[in-house]
């Protein structure tokens, strides 16, 4: 590697470098600044992310391969990086007060989120299984720790432990697949890997390898059969982290899946069948099990499984439209899910946990505005127009039907009708029950800003999807 190449590579990965440097500085700074300076970290972290976003924007104009083909800064990664930025910044906003209430505020909290962000960014940009793996681990290691951040709460410890063990198993499976790919093709680059298999009928060993890799990745997005961690982890983790995990790492997982699947490796095989089965089962499981949940966080966990299933339908479609549909889906899902989590987080105040659905009975009476927002998010999650959630699903269906998978589309919509049931059940609770107690939501300006932003996104993308659709398509078509 020459100095110029190194410089070019560093330039291409500037956003990542900014985030990691910022995280390191904050890590040290956090030990020097006294306690009770939470707002400093929030704003410093936000500043870091904004700087990275600026860098990403400046570099978005062209495709920049870097680090001898291990990394690439292209439109695809830019799109995902912005999803990550949004998710992270909103998580920062939501965390400020919540962390205070839970007593977990520390600089490490923000630093870990920043590191997780950098991991996700690397995942989105990785073009080599090695860089992919490193990014993945950087992300999950941080989320492991963040999951267990409520140190005095056995539930949180337990969630973290489950997450870490199952996560490690999935990583091992993923790596085993990678080692097989390496053994069979002699390369770990996604391009090289694809080149090694195009044309010929797929070697069964390669298929096995792909299955292993898919299994490992499927874990990260919480799809069947590696979904069992999701509800427990979502329930046990601090709610802000749950919100973050349901959006950021999930999107990152999909970024990787799409990158791998965009390659002829899978296009040339019948792997879509496997993926289709995963999609159907995931969505069915998420939808049906969510029906019987009483805990809001668990419900949202199953809901996120169901949504992952729906997004995987877009992967099944596989075409450029399918890819773009998954990307758009993730963007929209981030908006609405962070919104609904924002409400749940806000409700955590005093002795009120806000985790039980029944807790929200009669919420509409005392806080009509917030209830309206909740209504918006919930109907968006259910996929009812004119919210963004509808357009997300619509586009996935368009992609599916374009490829001729009409039956899959029918299954998808029927399952989403099932899923709609549990969302409107919550609407029922907040609108049609009498209040059991007084609500005292922890509404800070930051939380307000988050809710406003997500509501705007949820409604805005639903009503005027064109621009975002173009962004997603441009990210795919433009390389």
């Amino acid at each position, binding site marked *: 590697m020459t100095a110029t190449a190194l410089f070019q590579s560093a330039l291409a990965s500037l956003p990542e470098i900014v985030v990691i440097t910022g995280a390191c500085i904050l890590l040290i700074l956090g030990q020097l600044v006294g306690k009770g300076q939470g707002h400093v970290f929030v704003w410093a972290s936000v500043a870091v992310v904004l700087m990275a976003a600026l860098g990403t924007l400046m570099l978005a104009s062209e495709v920049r391969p870097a680090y001898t083909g291990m990394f690439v800064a292209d439109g695809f990664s830019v799109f995902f990086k912005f999803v990550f930025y949004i998710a992270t910044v909103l998580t920062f906003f939501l965390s400020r007060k919540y962390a205070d209430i839970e007593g977990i505020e520390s600089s490490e909290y923000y630093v870990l989120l920043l590191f997780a962000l950098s991991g996700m960014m690397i995942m989105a940009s990785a073009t080599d299984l090695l860089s992919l793996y490193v990014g993945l681990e950087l992300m999950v290691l941080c989320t492991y720790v963040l999951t267990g951040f409520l140190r005095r709460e056995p539930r949180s410890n337990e969630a973290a432990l489950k997450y870490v063990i199952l996560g490690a198993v999935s990583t091992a499976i993923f790596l085993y697949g990678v080692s097989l790919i390496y053994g069979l093709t002699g390369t770990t680059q996604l391009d090289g890997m694809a080149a090694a298999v195009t044309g010929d009928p797929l070697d069964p060993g390669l298929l096995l390898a792909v299955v292993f890799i898919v299994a490992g990745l499927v874990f990260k997005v919480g799809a069947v059969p590696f979904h069992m961690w999701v509800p427990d982890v979502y329930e046990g983790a601090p709610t802000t982290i749950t919100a973050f995990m349901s959006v950021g790492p999930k999107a990152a997982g999909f970024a990787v899946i799409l990158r791998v699947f965009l390659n002829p490796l899978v296009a040339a095989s019948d792997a879509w069948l496997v993926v289709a089965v995963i999609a159907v089962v995931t969505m069915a499981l998420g939808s049906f099990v969510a029906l019987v949940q009483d805990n809001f966080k668990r419900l949202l966990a199953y809901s996120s499984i169901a949504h992952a299933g729906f997004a995987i339908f877009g992967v099944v479609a596989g075409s450029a439209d399918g890819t773009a549909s998954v990307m758009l889906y993730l963007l929209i899902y981030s908006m609405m899910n962070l919104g609904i989590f924002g409400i749940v987080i806000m409700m955590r105040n005093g002795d009120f946990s806000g985790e039980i659905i029944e807790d929200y009975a009669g919420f*509409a*009476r005392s806080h*009509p505005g917030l209830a309206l927002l909740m*209504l918006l998010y919930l*109907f968006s999650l259910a996929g*009812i*127009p*004119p919210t963004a959630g*509808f357009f997300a699903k*619509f*586009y996935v*269906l*368009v992609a599916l*039907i*374009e490829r001729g998978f*009409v039956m899959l*589309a*029918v299954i998808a*919509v*029927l399952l*989403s*009708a099932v899923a*709609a*049931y549990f969302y*409107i*059940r919550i*609407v*029922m609770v907040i*609108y*049609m029950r009498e209040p059991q107690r007084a609500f005292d939501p922890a509404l800070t300006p930051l939380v307000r800003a988050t809710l406003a932003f997500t509501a705007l996104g949820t409604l805005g993308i639903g009503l005027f*999807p*064109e621009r975002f*659709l*173009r962004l997603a*398509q441009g990210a795919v078509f433009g390389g």
Partner: protein
Amino acid sequence: MGLPLLSLIVFTPAAGAVVLLLFRSEDAVRWTALAITVLDLALCIAMLAGFDQSTHQMQFTEIHPWVPTLGITYALGIDGISALFVFMTALLGWICVLASWVAINSKVKEFMVSLLVMQALMLGVFCALDLFLFYVCWEAMLIPMYLIIGVWGGDGRVYAAFKFFLYTLAGSLLFLIGVIVLYFHGGRTFDILALTGQDLPFWVQSWLFFAFLIAFAVKVPMVPVHTWLPDAHVQAPTAGSIILAGVLLKMGAYGFLRFSLPMLPEASVYYSTLMLALSALAIVYGGLLALAQDDLKKLVAYSSISHMGFVTLGVFALNLRGLEGGILQMFNHGITTGALFLLVGLIYERTHTRNIPDYGGLMKVAPVYTAFLALFTLSSMALPGTNSFVGELLVLSGGFAANLAAGAAAVVGALLSAAYLLGMFRRVALGPASIGARFKIRDVNAREMAAILPLAVFVLWVGLYPKPFLNIIDVSVKHLLAQVLTKGSGQ
């Protein structure tokens, strides 16, 4: 081109809903809502005044790109068929506001907002010339309607709201799949007019026909999928019932007219017998169930099923009289059944019971009310001189022309309706004034009168002089029929 009249009509209630959010006083909310709905009605009348009855072309069209990447446009336009429904929707809008003036006493603002949003979406459905836009409005209606039933409904409102929501959602999602399939078969466009001219293979048409059928049949509702309707009607507040009966049920039939027939003519012709059979079943089954009801609202609800059976029967008779009768009957049903629900609502506000045996001798305590009840009851059973007579007669003659058995079933249905409606009227209004002993009943006041009177006017107007109404739809129906029969006869 000038004024985007249709957009104004559609967005006036929507904008009004936003304005309402700013108010605090309940009375201000009520008056504003009334003003908005009246304004909307005025716009509709203006639209009808400028409507050209001599062409089947879409009028007042507005086309703006919306999501060009996917060929989605914001396209509005009306022909004779939709014009009638737009008018009816606007007409019922302000009546709904009046009907809920005192009936709704909690969360008034939210209710009125829901009502106005609902109206905007309904108008959007009837005006849409883009399938995507149509679908968005069609499905978005679920949200306000769910809330109207679920929040302001009766004791069993939660269950009813759920049932309504899930039935309709499941149906419309399949419709969505159909729409997307159509999109690809029709050359990647959601333009309704562009899609009507297509020659789709028969198997595609068949699949789409059934996909559409499920969605529309749920809305109409046709018999196997009708069970949400009695629950929803019974539990909904009066205004909700009026909207349900007056507009929502029409959307299914409208869907048949707008999509199934012109876009899938071969399948429509091919499966018309099946549709006729289902319609006949709905007529007789609905009538029989209505006969067995002791609950006023349920009775009216089941009568709706029966009457909507007439509508679909007329539509799928696939002849001019049948179609025109069906469409007119949709309008009539909106007026008559809407009025009946209104009347039931009014009496319920006074007695808080809907149980028919609790009533009796209403004529003596509330003569004006009883007079209206008599008029609408007679209208509902299609007495000559009332609106329904015209529509039902056309449907029957069309039905007999198409299929003897279906026509016969329709006659049975008509007789049944006479039986349950007269029975109801007798038990409620005639006999000793037992009801006055238990409840203090006052007669209709001015506000209620204002709500009922226009409907009564339309009952008699259509009954005695239906020509203006038939004129509006005539050309469009003929064009539609021509489309179906030329394409469909190839089968």
